[in-house]
C-alpha cells in the first residue's frame, strides 16, 4: 500500500440545536492512502456526510463545530486552517461531488463557464489554455462532441451526463483527494454503472484518492478498495473490502450484509436489524448498536469498545473481539448456524389460477404543452393472478408509477381496459373499487397528513366507507391494525412527525389495510428507507400477504428487492413492457436486450462477483413498430419482439444463463 495522504484522528463534530448538542461525529479515526478508494457506508444520520464535509471545511457554522480531533493533510491540520487557507485547498487539492447533479450545477451558466471558474481560481494559466483544458476534461469524463457541448447549459444534459460534468468540475485542478457524497443515489442503475466505471477509470489514469460515501453495499463491493462502516457517528469497522464483506466482525456490519437480499438463493425471510438508529442528541453509553443487537453482551451496555485489530488492515470496534469473549463467540456461531439451517427450508408459495387483474392495451397520455403529448404509458397489457406479487421494474420516467396510479383511478386512462375480477374498473362503482384496491406510497414523510393523529390517519378509509359500528369499535380496529403492522397501541394518539421513516411506512400500510383490500399497489414502498429498515418493511409485506391472501403490484427500481419479493416480474421501458417472466426465470435467463443491460448494471454486495462483472451496454432495438409486441417464448416467459425474432430467442433461451 502506498503512503498516507490524509489522516483523520479522533474527530468529534457537534451541532447545537434548540434541544441541545447533537453529537453527529463521535471520534472517527482513519487514514486515506494514495490512489485508493475508501468507501464509507452507514445509514442516514450515521454522520458519514458530516465527516466528509469537515474534510473540506464545509461544516455549517455557527450551529456546527469541530469539538476535538485533527484532520492532517500534507502535515497541516485542516481543522485549524483559516478560511483563506481552506479556500486554497478546496477544488485544487480536495474536491467534492454531491448527490444531486441537477442542484450542484448553476442553471444559468454554461458548462464552459462553470468548469472554467475553478481552473482560473486556482491555476495561473490564460483563459485560452483553460478553455482547452475544459474540453479535454469533458472528453476525459466521456462526453462526446465536447467542443460543441461546452457552450450548452445544464438542462440540456441528461442526469447521467450532468453528473459527468460535475465530476469533470471536481477534477479540473487534478485534486489529490476526491470526495464523492452519494454520487449515484439519484441516478438510475444503468447510469450508476456508467458513473462508477468512469470513476474507476479516472482513478487509474490520475491516481486520485477517492472517499466514496454511500449506503448501497452493492456499490461499495463494486468500487471500493477499503470500507469503513459508520454507525451513530463512529467507525465501527474498517478494513479491505473483501475482509469486511467475507469476514465481518461487528454485529452491525453482519446485520447490514444479511439484510440485503441475495440474488442467488431463495430466501423465505430477510434477516433484519430491529429498530432504528439512536438519536445522537442522547448518544447511548457503551456500544451504540447494543440496543438493536439481540446478542449483545452485558459489557456492550456499559463500556464503549475500543478498536480491536483483526488483521494488519482490518479492525473493528466490538467487545466480541476481546480475548475474554472467545467463549461467547463460539456459542453465538453455533446458534447462528442452527438458525440458518432452519431458515433455509423454503416452503413454496401457492398461487391461485384466477386472474384478479387484467390490463389490456392500457394507455395514459399527458398533454405536454404546445401540442406535444407525453406517452407515459403506451399500450400495456398484463395479468395478475390472485395471491401473487407482480413486480414492475424500470428506470425513472418509464411509466411504472403512472401505471400504478392509473390502476387505482387517480388518473383516468386515455384508452385501454382494466378488469378487476372480471369487471371493468372504469365502469365499476368507484367507492367499492377503492375498498378493493389500495395503494402504499413511496415517501413516508409526505404520505401522512401532519395535522392528523395516527388513529385518524389509519381510520380514514373506515370513516369514508362506514366500516365500524361505534367509536369504541373504530378504536378497536385501529389498535388491531397497529398490532398487525408491528406498532403499539399507544402510538394511536401521536402525530406523524414523532415517528421514524420505517414506522411511518408501517402506518401507511395500516391505512391501506384498514378497508380490507384484495389488491395492493406498492409504489416504491421501500426506496426512501435505510437498508436495515427496508428489510423490515419487505418482511412485513410478505407476512401480510400470507395472512390476508393479498395480491401485490410491487413497483420499484431496486431490482434485487423486486426479485426477492416478486413471483413474476415485468420490465418496462418507455411506457411499454419489454419482458415478463417468473422472477427466477427473468434473472437467470433474461432475453430482451434491455433486461440484459439492466440486470448487468445491478451492483451485488459481493466483491468477488463485482470483480468479474461485465456490464452489457444497452443494445438497440426498434420499439415503435406494430409488429413489436409481447410474444410468449417459453411457457410464462414473454418478450417484446417481432415475429422473426421469436425463433432466435427460443434457441437462445435453451442456452445456459449468461449472468452469475
Amino acid at each position, binding site marked *: 500500500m502506498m503512503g498516507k495522504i490524509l489522516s483523520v484522528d479522533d474527530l468529534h463534530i457537534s451541532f447545537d440545536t*434548540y*434541544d441541545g448538542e447533537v453529537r453527529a461525529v463521535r471520534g472517527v479515526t482513519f487514514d486515506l492512502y494514495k490512489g485508493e478508494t475508501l468507501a464509507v457506508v452507514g445509514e442516514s444520520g450515521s454522520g458519514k456526510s458530516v465527516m466528509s464535509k469537515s474534510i473540506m471545511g464545509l461544516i455549517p457554522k455557527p450551529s456546527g463545530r469541530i469539538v476535538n480531533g485533527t484532520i492532517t493533510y500534507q502535515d497541516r491540520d485542516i481543522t485549524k486552517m483559516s478560511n483563506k487557507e481552506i479556500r486554497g485547498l478546496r477544488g485544487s487539492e480536495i474536491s467534492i461531488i454531491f448527490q444531486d447533479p441537477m442542484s450542484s450545477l448553476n442553471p444559468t451558466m454554461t458548462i464552459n463557464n462553470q468548469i472554467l471558474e475553478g481552473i482560473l481560481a486556482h491555476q495561473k494559466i490564460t483563459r485560452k489554455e483553460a478553455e482547452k483544458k475544459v474540453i479535454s476534461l469533458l472528453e476525459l469524463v466521456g462526453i462526446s462532441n465536447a467542443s460543441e457541448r461546452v457552450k450548452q447549459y445544464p438542462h440540456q444534459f441528461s442526469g447521467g451526463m450532468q453528473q459527468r460534468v460535475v465530476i469533470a468540475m471536481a477534477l479540473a485542478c487534478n485534486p489529490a483527494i476526491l470526495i464523492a457524497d452519494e454520487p449515484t443515489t439519484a441516478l438510475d442503475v444503468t447510469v450508476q454503472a456508467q458513473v462508477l466505471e468512469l470513476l474507476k477509470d479516472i482513478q487509474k489514469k490520475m491516481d486520485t484518492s477517492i472517499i466514496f460515501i454511500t449506503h448501497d453495499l452493492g456499490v461499495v463491493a463494486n468500487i471500493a478498495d477499503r470500507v469503513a462502516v459508520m454507525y451513530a457517528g463512529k467507525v465501527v469497522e474498517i478494513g479491505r473490502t473483501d475482509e469486511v464483506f467475507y469476514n465481518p466482525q461487528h454485529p452491525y456490519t453482519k446485520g447490514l450484509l444479511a439484510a440485503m437480499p441475495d440474488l442467488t438463493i431463495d430466501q423465505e425471510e430477510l434477516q433484519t436489524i*430491529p*429498530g432504528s438508529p439512536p438519536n445522537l442528541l442522547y448518544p447511548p453509553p457503551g456500544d451504540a448498536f*447494543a*440496543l*438493536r*443487537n*439481540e*446478542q*449483545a*453482551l*452485558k*459489557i*456492550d*451496555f*456499559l*463500556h464503549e469498545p*475500543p478498536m480491536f485489530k483483526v488483521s494488519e488492515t482490518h479492525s473493528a470496534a466490538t*467487545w466480541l473481539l*476481546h480475548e*475474554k*469473549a472467545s467463549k*461467547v463467540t463460539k456459542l*453465538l456461531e453455533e446458534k447462528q448456524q442452527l438458525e440458518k439451517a432452519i431458515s433455509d427450508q423454503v416452503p413454496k408459495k401457492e398461487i391461485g389460477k384466477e386472474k384478479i387483474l387484467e390490463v389490456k392495451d392500457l394507455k395514459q397520455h399527458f398533454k405536454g404543452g404546445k401540442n406535444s403529448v407525453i406517452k407515459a404509458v403506451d399500450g400495456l397489457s398484463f395479468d395478475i393472478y390472485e395471491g401473487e406479487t407482480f413486480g414492475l421494474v424500470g428506470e425513472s420516467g418509464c411509466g411504472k408509477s403512472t401505471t400504478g*396510479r392509473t390502476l*387505482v383511478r*387517480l388518473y383516468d386512462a386515455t384508452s385501454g381496459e382494466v378488469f378487476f375480477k372480471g369487471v371493468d374498473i372504469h365502469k365499476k362503482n*368507484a*367507492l367499492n*373499487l*377503492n*375498498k378493493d384496491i*389500495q*395503494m402504499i*406510497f*413511496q*415517501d413516508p414523510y*409526505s*404520505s*401522512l*397528513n*401532519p*395535522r392528523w393523529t395516527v388513529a385518524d*390517519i389509519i381510520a*380514514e*378509509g373506515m370513516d*369514508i*366507507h362506514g366500516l365500524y359500528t361505534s367509536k369504541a369499535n373504530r378504536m378497536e380496529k385501529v389498535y388491531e391494525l397497529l398490532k398487525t403492522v408491528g406498532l*403499539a397501541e*399507544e*402510538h394511536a*394518539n*401521536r*402525530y406523524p412527525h*414523532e415517528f421514524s421513516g420505517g414506522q411511518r411506512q408501517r402506518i*401507511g400500510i395500516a*391505512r*391501506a389495510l384498514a*378497508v380490507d383490500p384484495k389488491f395492493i399497489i406498492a409504489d416504491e414502498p421501500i426506496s426512501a428507507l435505510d437498508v436495515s429498515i427496508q428489510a423490515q418493511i419487505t418482511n412485513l409485506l410478505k407476512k401480510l400477504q400470507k395472512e390476508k391472501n393479498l395480491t401485490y403490484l410491487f413497483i420499484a427500481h431496486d431490482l434485487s428487492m423486486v426479485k426477492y419479493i416478486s413471483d413474476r416480474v415485468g420490465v418496462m421501458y418507455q411506457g411499454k413492457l419489454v419482458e415478463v417472466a417468473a422472477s427466477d426465470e427473468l434473472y437467470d435467463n433474461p432475453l430482451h436486450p434491455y433486461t440484459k443491460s439492466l440486470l448487468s448494471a445491478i451492483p451485488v454486495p459481493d466483491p468477488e462477483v463485482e470483480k468479474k462483472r461485465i456490464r452489457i451496454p444497452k443494445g438497440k432495438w426498434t420499439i415503435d413498430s406494430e409488429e413489436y409486441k409481447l410474444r410468449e417464448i417459453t411457457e410464462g416467459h414473454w418478450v417484446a419482439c417481432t415475429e422473426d425474432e421469436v425463433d432466435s430467442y427460443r434457441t437462445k433461451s435453451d442456452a445456459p444463463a449468461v449472468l452469475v
Partner: protein
Amino acid sequence: MKVNEYELTDDLFEESGKAFEEKRITSRPSSTFMKDSWLRLRKNKGAFTGLILIILIMFLAAFGPYMNSHGFDEQDLTRTNLPPKVPVLENLSFLGVSGVDIRGTDQYAAKEVPDYYWFGTDDLGRDLWTRIWQGTRISLYIAFLAATLDLVIGVAYGSISAYYGGRIDNVMQRIIEVLMGIPNLIVVILLILILKPGIMSITLAMVITGWVSMARIVRGQVLKLKGQEFVLASRTLGAKDKNLIWGHLIPNSLGPIIITTMFTIPTAIFTEAFLSFIGLGLQPPIASLGMIVNDGFKMLKIYPHMLMFSSVIISLIMISFNLLGDGLRDSFDPKMKK
C-alpha cells in the same frame, strides 16, 4: 489489549439476553401542531408584547368610552381645545398633562372648567378620550369585519380555484388579475360615490379588492398540497372533494392563512384611517381614528395633543399587529422546529 479505566471481569462477557424493545416514545408529551406553535410564539418576545398590547387596546376600545361621563358627540363651546389634564399626574409638569398648553397658560383655569379631560378636548369641546376609544372601536370593528370577509372569500375562492384546476382555475385567475389591475383607490372612490359613506360601504370597498391576496396564497398552498402523497392516499381511499378540502388541504394551509389575516388587519385599519383622513371615510359625528387625526392635523401647531394621542394609538395598533403576525409566521413555520 489493555483497558485501564475499568476492570473487565469475566461475567461482563456473557450474553445479556436482552431482547430488542421498540423504544417507547413517552419521553416527550404528545403535542399537537397548534400547541407547538403556541410554545414557540410565547418564546418570541416581540410577538408576545404585540399580543399584550392588542389585548390592552381592545379592552380600552371596549370600556374606555364608559370610563368618564362625557359622550363622544357632546359638544360644549365653553370648553374647546383644552389640553390634556389627568388627576395626580397633573402635578408632574414634565408629563404635559397638567392642563397647561404650549404657550404656558392653564386653559382649565382660564376657561373655568372644573372637570378633568384626560386627552383634552377638540375644537367643538368634545372629550377626546371618549372619542379616541370610540374611534378605535370603530376602526377595529371595520378591520376585523374586512379581515373576516377577506378570509372567507379568499379561502373559498383560492381553494376552489386550485383544487379543480384546469379551465376553472384559468378563468378564476383571470378575474383576479382584472381586479388587481384596477387601482384600489379608484374602486373605493367609485363605491363611496354610489353608496353612502358609512361603516358598511368602507368595509365593502376594502373587501372588494382585499380578498385577492388571500385567494392567491391559499391557491398556492393548495396547489402545493394536492399533489402530496397523503392527499393521493385519501383519494385512493375514496374521499370526496369536500373531505379532501376540509380535512387535508385547508388544515394544512392554516399557518399562511392566519398570518395573512394578521397582516390584513393593520392594513385595513390604516386604509380606513387614510380614507377618513382624505374625507372619503365615515362622516361626523361618528368618530374614527382617521377622522380624529384629520381634525387634529388642522391645528397641529397650536394644539398638538389632538393629533398626538390618535396617531400614537394608530401606530401602536399597526406595530403590535405586525409584531404578532411576524411572530406567528415564525411559529407556524415547521422549519423552525429543531
